[in-house]
C-alpha cells in the first residue's frame, strides 16, 4: 500500500505541476464565459437592419392606418421591451435586478426590427396584379410583402362567427424577421381597430385580459423555495457534464502518462520495484485525486455563484454527495479502460483507434441527457440507469431532474456501478500485466482478450 501511495503521489504531482494542467483547468470556465459574452454578439453582429416596402390591400379601410402606427420605431421599441420582460420572467430575481429594464445583451439578441414602409393600395386592387408587383424587377427599396387584410378582420360577417385575419404574399428568401414584425404589428393594429369598432376602452380590455403567470413555490420538508425553471432544466446537464469532464481529465492524463512510461521504457524500471497491479492502482488513484481536485474547484466556483445570486437554497446538497459517489464509480470504470489502453499501445496514434469506442460511450450521456431529463422515470431512463457504463450518468441526470427516482433504484445503480468498476479493474490489471512490456504491433481486440486469458 505504501508503494501504491508513492506512485499515486508522483502521478498527482506530475499532473498538477504541469503547465498544461492549469491551462486545462481554465479552459471550461473560459469557454463558458466567452460563450456568455461573445455568443449574443456573434449571433447578431452581422445582422443588418432590413429596409423595404410592404403593400397593403385593406378592404376594411381601418387597419392600414393603425398598421402604419404599429410599425413606427417607438411602437417596435415598446414591443421589444415587453419581449425582454418575458425573457427574464423565468430568470432568478437576482439576475432580473442585474438585467434591469434595459439589457444590451437581450437587445442584441433581439436585433434591430426591420424598417418597413407601408404602401396602401386601393381596397379594390387586383391581388394577382399586386403579386406581380412583388416579383417585378425594380430599382429603389426592396419589395418585401403583400398584405391582404380580410374584409372580416375588424367585424365578423355574422354575430358569433370568427374574425378574419390577413393573407401574406412574400418573395423568395425573405427574412423570417419581416414576417414576425408584420404579424406583431398587424396584431396590434387589428386589436386596436376591433376595440375601437366596439366602442370599448382599450385599457379596460387589456386589464381584463391580463393574468400574470405566478412563479411557483417548491415546498420541501421543513422548507420552501421559489421554483426556478431554468435552474431546474440546467441542473441535470451541469451534473452530467461535471461527471464526464472529471472522467476525461483523469482518464486522458492516465492514458497519456502510461503511454509515456511505456515508450520511455521507464516502466520496466518501475516494475522491478512494484507489481503491475500496484503500479496501476497507484496511477489510477493519483489521477483520481487530480480529477477530484478539478471537480472540487468547479463545484466550489458553482456554489460561490449560487451564493452570490442567492440561489444556494435551490440546490439539494445530496446532489453533491451523489456526484461524488457516481464520479468515483464512473472514474474507476473509465480509468481502468483508459489505463489498459495506455498499457496496450505504443503511442498516442495507436491509442486513438482503441479510444474511439470509449469516447463514443462517453458521448452517449449527452445524447440521452435531454430525453432522460424530460422523462426521468420513463422506461428508457430507468433501463439506462442500470446499464453500465452509462448507468451513473443516467442516474445523475435523473437525480438532478424534477422527479428524482426512488431510493432503491439509486442504490441498485450504485451496486451495478461498483460491480462494473471491479470488472473493469480486473480486465485492466490483466492487460497491464502483459501489455506494459509488449512493444511493436498494436494489439487487436482479439489479442487483448488473449492477454486477459493468459495473464
Amino acid at each position, binding site marked *: 500500500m505504501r*508503494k501504491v501511495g508513492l*506512485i499515486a503521489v508522483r502521478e498527482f504531482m506530475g499532473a498538477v505541476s504541469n503547465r498544461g494542467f492549469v491551462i486545462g483547468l481554465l479552459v471550461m470556465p473560459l469557454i463558458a464565459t466567452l460563450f456568455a459574452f461573445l455568443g449574443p454578439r456573434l449571433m447578431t453582429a452581422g445582422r443588418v437592419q432590413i429596409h423595404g416596402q410592404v403593400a397593403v390591400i385593406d378592404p376594411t379601410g381601418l387597419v392600414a392606418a393603425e398598421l402604419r402606427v404599429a410599425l413606427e420605431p417607438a411602437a417596435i421599441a415598446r414591443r421589444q421591451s415587453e419581449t425582454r420582460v418575458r425573457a427574464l420572467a423565468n430568470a432568478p430575481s437576482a439576475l432580473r435586478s442585474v438585467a434591469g429594464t434595459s439589457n444590451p445583451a437581450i437587445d442584441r439578441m433581439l436585433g434591430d426590427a426591420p424598417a418597413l414602409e407601408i404602401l396602401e393600395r386601393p381596397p379594390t386592387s387586383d391581388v394577382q396584379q399586386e403579386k406581380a408587383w412583388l416579383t417585378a424587377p425594380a430599382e429603389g427599396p426592396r419589395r418585401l410583402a403583400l398584405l391582404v387584410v380580410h374584409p372580416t378582420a375588424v367585424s365578423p360577417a355574422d354575430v358569433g362567427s370568427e374574425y378574419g385575419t390577413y393573407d401574406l404574399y412574400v418573395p423568395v428568401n425573405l427574412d423570417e424577421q419581416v414576417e414576425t414584425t408584420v404579424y406583431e404589428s398587424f396584431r396590434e393594429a387589428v386589436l386596436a381597430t376591433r376595440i375601437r369598432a366596439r366602442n370599448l376602452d382599450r385599457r379596460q380590455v387589456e386589464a381584463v385580459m391580463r393574468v400574470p403567470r405566478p412563479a411557483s413555490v417548491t415546498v420541501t420538508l421543513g422548507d420552501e423555495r421559489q421554483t426556478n425553471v431554468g435552474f431546474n432544466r440546467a441542473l441535470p446537464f451541469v451534473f452530467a457534464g461535471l461527471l464526464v469532464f472529471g472522467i476525461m481529465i483523469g482518464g486522458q492524463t492516465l492514458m497519456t502518462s502510461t503511454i509515456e512510461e511505456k515508450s520511455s521504457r521507464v516502466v520496466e*524500471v518501475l516494475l*522491478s520495484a512494484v507489481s503491475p497491479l500496484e503500479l496501476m492502482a497507484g496511477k489510477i488513484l493519483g489521477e483520481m485525486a487530480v480529477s477530484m481536485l478539478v471537480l472540487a474547484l468547479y463545484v466550489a466556483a458553482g456554489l460561490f455563484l449560487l451564493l452570490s445570486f442567492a440561489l444556494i437554497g435551490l440546490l439539494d446538497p445530496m446532489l453533491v454527495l451523489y456526484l461524488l459517489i457516481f464520479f468515483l464509480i464512473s472514474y474507476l470504470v473509465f480509468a481502468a479502460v483508459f489505463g489498459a489502453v495506455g498499457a496496450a499501445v505504443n503511442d498516442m496514434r495507436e491509442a486513438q483507434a482503441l479510444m474511439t469506442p470509449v469516447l463514443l460511450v462517453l458521448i452517449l450521456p449527452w445524447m440521452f441527457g435531454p430525453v432522460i431529463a424530460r422523462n426521468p422515470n420513463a422506461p428508457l431512463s430507468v433501463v439506462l440507469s442500470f446499464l453500465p457504463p452509462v448507468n451513473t450518468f443516467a442516474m445523475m441526470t435523473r437525480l438532478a431532474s424534477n422527479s428524482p427516482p426512488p431510493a432503491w433504484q439509486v442504490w441498485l445503480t450504485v451496486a451495478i456501478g461498483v460491480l462494473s468498476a471491479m470488472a473493469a479493474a480486473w480486465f485492466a490489471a490483466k492487460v497491464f500485466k502483459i501489455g506494459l*512490456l509488449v512493444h511493436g504491433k498494436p494489439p487487436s481486440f482479439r489479442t487483448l482478450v488473449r492477454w486477459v486469458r493468459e495473464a
Partner: protein
Amino acid sequence: MAPALELRQVRKVFGTTTAVDDLSLIVPRGALYGVIGPNGAGKTTCIRMIMSLLFPDAGELTVLGRPSALEAKDRIGYLPEERGVYRKMKVLAFLTFMARLKGLTQEEARDRVPALLARVGLPEVERKRCEDLSKGMLQRIQFVAAVIHAPDLLILDEPFSGLDPVSVRVLRDHVLEEHRRGATILLSTHIMAHAEQICQHVVMLHQGRKVLDEPVAGLRRQFDSRTVLFEPMDPDADLTPVSTLPGVVGIEAAEGAYRIALAAGTDPAALIAQVARAVPAARVELARLRLEDIFIGIVTGGQRLGEAARLRATLATEAEGAPA
C-alpha cells in the same frame, strides 16, 4: 543458505518460438555470473522471468530463497536492457522516488543519493532534469537507481551496451565494487569479452538452451584451443601450401592475419612448425582461447567451418559499437 537464484527446467514459449527451453541454473550467494549468448539467445527472457516480469510456461524458480521475485523486490537491484527515466523529472527527485519504492525512507534516500552520485562521478547533476543528461550519464544514473538500496542480488541486463570505452570501464568498476560489498551479481551480455573480463562464472545460451555453465577459470583447461594465428611476411602470399597441410580444416582471414582451424587430434606445436616452413611467417602462434571461440566451438561442434564463420561474423557485428 538457499542459493541466490535457482531455476529448474524453466521454459518460455512466445507463439511458435521457444525463447527459453529447459533451463536449469543455480547461482550461489555472492557469485558474479555472466549470462552470454548472441542476440535472441533468450538472455532477456530468462532475466525477465527471474524478475517476475514474465512467468515461465513450465519449470520453477526461486529468487533469494523465495518462490518469486515479487516477494523479494526490495532486496533486488535491476538494470533492464531497455532503460528509461522520467525525462521531465530532476535527477534527485527520480532517484529519491526509486529509492523510496525500494523501501528506503525519505531520510535514507536523501543521504544516499548524493553519495552515490559522487561515487559514479556525477556529483553536480542532482538538480538537472533527466532529459538534459547524455546517454552515458543516464546509464550511470540508472545504475545508481539499481543499487541505491544496497541490494543482495543485482541483475544487470546488457549493462555495457551503447557505452563508450571509458564509461564501460567506470561501470565495470562499480559492478565489481558491488560484488565486493557482497552482492550476488548476474549480468547478461552479448559481448563475450565483457563477460570474460568481469565474471567468475559464465552461462552460455544458444537458441534458448543452456550450452555451457562453467567457471571462467576452468574454461581454458577444459577447452583446448585448436586455432593457430598466422601472419605471413608477404600479405599477398599464396596460402595453398598451408591449407593443404594435414590437420588443417580451414583458414579464415581475421584482423590482418589468418586463423587456421585444426582437426581434432592435431598437435598444434608440430603444425606451427609446418606452417612456418610452408609460407614465410611474420607471426605464427597458438590463438588465445576466447569465450567466443568456445561458444562457436560448442554450437558448431568444431566441424562446420561455414557455420562457424557465419556465427563469428554475427558476433562481430553485434560487438560493433560496444568496445571491450
